[in-house]
C-alpha cells in the first residue's frame, strides 16, 4: 500500500476531524486568498479605470492630481499638444464646485465639469449625449449623474439653474439656465456623487463669461507612439507644468492612497498563514500522539521511516490541499461581500473594486499553502522518525 493510500485511509477513519480541519483551512485559506486579491486589487482596478478612459497622459499645473489649479493659457497649450506627432487626441477639463437648483427642490452642492469634447468616457443611461444638434443650439446643455438626477428628480429635457462658486470667493456670478440632455454614468464618479458635465463654452458662461482655463489636460498618444515620447515632448512644451503617465498616477496612488490596504493585506496574509500552520500542525501532532501505537505497529510490520514520513506529508497535503481548493470558491464569495463593504467608502469611484483576481494571486496562494502543508508536517514527522518501536508497543499493550 502506498503512503498516499495510507493517508487516505487515515483521513477516512477519522472523518469528523478531517472534515473539520478541511473546513478550518478552507475558511482561513479563503481569507488568505482574499488578502492576496486585496494586496493589489485597488491598484489593478485603478489602472484599468485609467486605461479605459482612452487617455494615457495627464497634464496639471502643480504636483499631484488631487488639488488642481487652472493651467494658464490652456487652450493654446492644447493646440500645441495637438500638433505633436505622437498625439492622437487632447481633452480639456475644468472642475468647479457649484450650486444647482431644480424646480421646487432645495439647492444642492455639485461638481460642475466643463469638457472640451462632447464624446467622452461616460455611458448614457437615459436621454442623449451632448454631441447632438439640439444640444449644440442650447446655451448650457448638461449631462447629470444618476445620484444628481435622483436627488433633484431630473429627467432629460428638464431645466435647472447652476451657480459656479469659485473657491474662496463670495460668488456674485449669475445663475446659468441649463437643460438636461442625458443622465450618465461617469467613469470616475463615486456612487453618491452629484456631478453635472457641460461644454467648455457653457462652462465659460457659468464663470461669468471670463476666460476659463482648464485645470486638467488629458492626452491620448497614438497607439504606435514609443512609450514616454509624447510625455517628454509635452513636458518640454511647458516646463512649468507637471505631466503624468497612467503608470505615474498609479505609482503615486500606490505610494499615498493605497498604503493602508497594502499593509492590512500583508498583516492579515501573514496572520492567516500562521493560523493555517498552527491549525494543521496541532491537529497532526495531536492525531499522531493518539496513533503512536498504530504507527509503531506499522513500523514493526516493516514499513520504513520514509514511508511513514511520506504518509504524514500526504495527510498534511490532504488537509491543506482539500481546504485550499475549497478556499477558492469560498474566497470569491467572501471577496464579493468584503468588496461591497469597502466600496461604501466615500470617494471611491463606482467602477473601482478592492478585490481583483489575477493569476499571480492564485500562484502565491498555492505556493503559500504548499509551504504551510510542508511546515505543518515537520514536527509530526520528526516525532515519528525517532519513535522507539518496542517501547511504544510495550507501553500500548500495558496501557
Amino acid at each position: 500500500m502506498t503512503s498516499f493510500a495510507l493517508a487516505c485511509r487515515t483521513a477516512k477513519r477519522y472523518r469528523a476531524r478531517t472534515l473539520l480541519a478541511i473546513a478550518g483551512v478552507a475558511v482561513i485559506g479563503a481569507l488568505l486568498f482574499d488578502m492576496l486579491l486585496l494586496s493589489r486589487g485597488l491598484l489593478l482596478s485603478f489602472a484599468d479605470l485609467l486605461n479605459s478612459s482612452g487617455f494615457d497622459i495627464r497634464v496639471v499645473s502643480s504636483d499631484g492630481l488631487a488639488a488642481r489649479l487652472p493651467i494658464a493659457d490652456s487652450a493654446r497649450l492644447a493646440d500645441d499638444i495637438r500638433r505633436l506627432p505622437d498625439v492622437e487626441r487632447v481633452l480639456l477639463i475644468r472642475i468647479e464646485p457649484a450650486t444647482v437648483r431644480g424646480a421646487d427642490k432645495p439647492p444642492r452642492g455639485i461638481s460642475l465639469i466643463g469638457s472640451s469634447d462632447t464624446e467622452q468616457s461616460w455611458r448614457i443611461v437615459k436621454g442623449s449625449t451632448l454631441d447632438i444638434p439640439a444640444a449644440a443650439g442650447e446655451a448650457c446643455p448638461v449631462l447629470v449623474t444618476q445620484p444628481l438626477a435622483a436627488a433633484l428628480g431630473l429627467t432629460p429635457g428638464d431645466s435647472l439653474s447652476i451657480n459656479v462658486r469659485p473657491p474662496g470667493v463670495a460668488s456674485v456670478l449669475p445663475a446659468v439656465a441649463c437643460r438636461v440632455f442625458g443622465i450618465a454614468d461617469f467613469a470616475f464618479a463615486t456612487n453618491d456623487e452629484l456631478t453635472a458635465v457641460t461644454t467648455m463654452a457653457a462652462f465659460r458662461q457659468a464663470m461669468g463669461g471670463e476666460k476659463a482655463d482648464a485645470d486638467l489636460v488629458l492626452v491620448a498618444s497614438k497607439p504606435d507612439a514609443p512609450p514616454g515620447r509624447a510625455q517628454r515632448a509635452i513636458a518640454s512644451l511647458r516646463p512649468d507644468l507637471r505631466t503624468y503617465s497612467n503608470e505615474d498616477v498609479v505609482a503615486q496612488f500606490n505610494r499615498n492612497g493605497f498604503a493602508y490596504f497594502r499593509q492590512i493585506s500583508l498583516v492579515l496574509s501573514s496572520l492567516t498563514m500562521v493560523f493555517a500552520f498552527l491549525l494543521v500542525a496541532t491537529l497532526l501532532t495531536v492525531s499522531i500522539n493518539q496513533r503512536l501505537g498504530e504507527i509503531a505497529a506499522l513500523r514493526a510490520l516493516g514499513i520504513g521511516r520514509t514511508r511513514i514520513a511520506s504518509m504524514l506529508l500526504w495527510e498534511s497535503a490532504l488537509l491543506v490541499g482539500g481546504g485550499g481548493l475549497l478556499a477558492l470558491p469560498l474566497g470569491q464569495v467572501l471577496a464579493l461581500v468584503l468588496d461591497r463593504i469597502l466600496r461604501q467608502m466615500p470617494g471611491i469611484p463606482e467602477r473601482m473594486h478592492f478585490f481583483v483576481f489575477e493569476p499571480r494571486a492564485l500562484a502565491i496562494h498555492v505556493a503559500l499553502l504548499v509551504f504551510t502543508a510542508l511546515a505543518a508536517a515537520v514536527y509530526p514527522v520528526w516525532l515519528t522518525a525517532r519513535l522507539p518501536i518496542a517501547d511504544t508497543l510495550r507501553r500500548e499493550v500495558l496501557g
Partner: protein
Amino acid sequence: MAALAVLVLFTAAVSADPPAILVSRQLAARARLAVGDVVTLAVDAGGTRGRQFRITGIYEPTPDPMRFTADRLEARLHLPDVIDFTADPADPASREAVSAINLGLAEDVKPGLFASDLMARAPGIVVRPTARSATDDPFVVLDRFHVAISAVTMVAGTAFLLALMVIRAEERRETVGILRLVGISRRTLLASVAIEGLVVAAIGAAFGILLAYASEGLVNRVFQARYDTALVFVRVTPSIAMRAIVVAAPLGILAGIGASWTLLRREVLSIFHR
C-alpha cells in the same frame, strides 16, 4: 496662527528681529532646523516675496488618520505674517481673504442646522461640520470591514476548536464509557465537556488578548516609524478584550458539547463496541 501648505526654504543674511514661526518635527528633521534658526520663506521656488522668520518652536502635527501617508512638512505662522507675504499686491482685497474660519459652537447648537443657516445667509461660502456623519466617514466603513474579517477568523477558529475537541472526545471514549457505567449521568458529563470547552476558549481568548497587548507597542512603533507619525494604529481597549472573551466563551461551550454529543447520546455498551 495659520497653517500654510507648501513653502520653500532659503538661507539668507539675517534681518533684524524676524517674526516667529513654528515648524513641524518632520520639517525640522528633513531640513535640519533647530529652534533659534532663521529661515526665509517664499511663495514659490523662485523665491518670490521671500521673507525671513525665526524658528521659535518645533511641534508635533496633530495625528490625522486621513493623512498618515503624507509628509507633514508644515510651518505655522501668525495670520498677519501669512497675509503679508502671500497676498497679491495687485489685489487689495486679497489682504482681507482667508481660506477657512474655524468656529466653536455653543453646546446646544446643532452643527448641521448652523451650517445650513449660515450658507443660506452668506451665499458662496461652504460651511461644514468637522464631525463626519456615518455615511461619509471612511473609518465607519473600515470598522465594518474589520468586523467582517473578525467574523471569518472566528468561524475558522471555531472549526479549529471543534476539531481539537473531537480528538479529545475520541481519546476519552473508554473513560466516558466507564464513567457512564459507574452511574455518572449524561447531563453531568455534558456539563463537564461544556466547562472544558469554556476553559479552553477562555484561556485561548486570554492568551490572544495578552499577545495583542504585548505586540501592540511593537506594531505601533513599526508603523509610526514607517510613516513618521505619532498616530496610534493599534490599541487593545478593555471593551475589545471583553468582546473577545464574550464571543469566545459561548463558542467554546458549543464546541465542547458539539464534539462530545455523538459519544454521549449513544447507549453505554455501544461505546465499548458491544
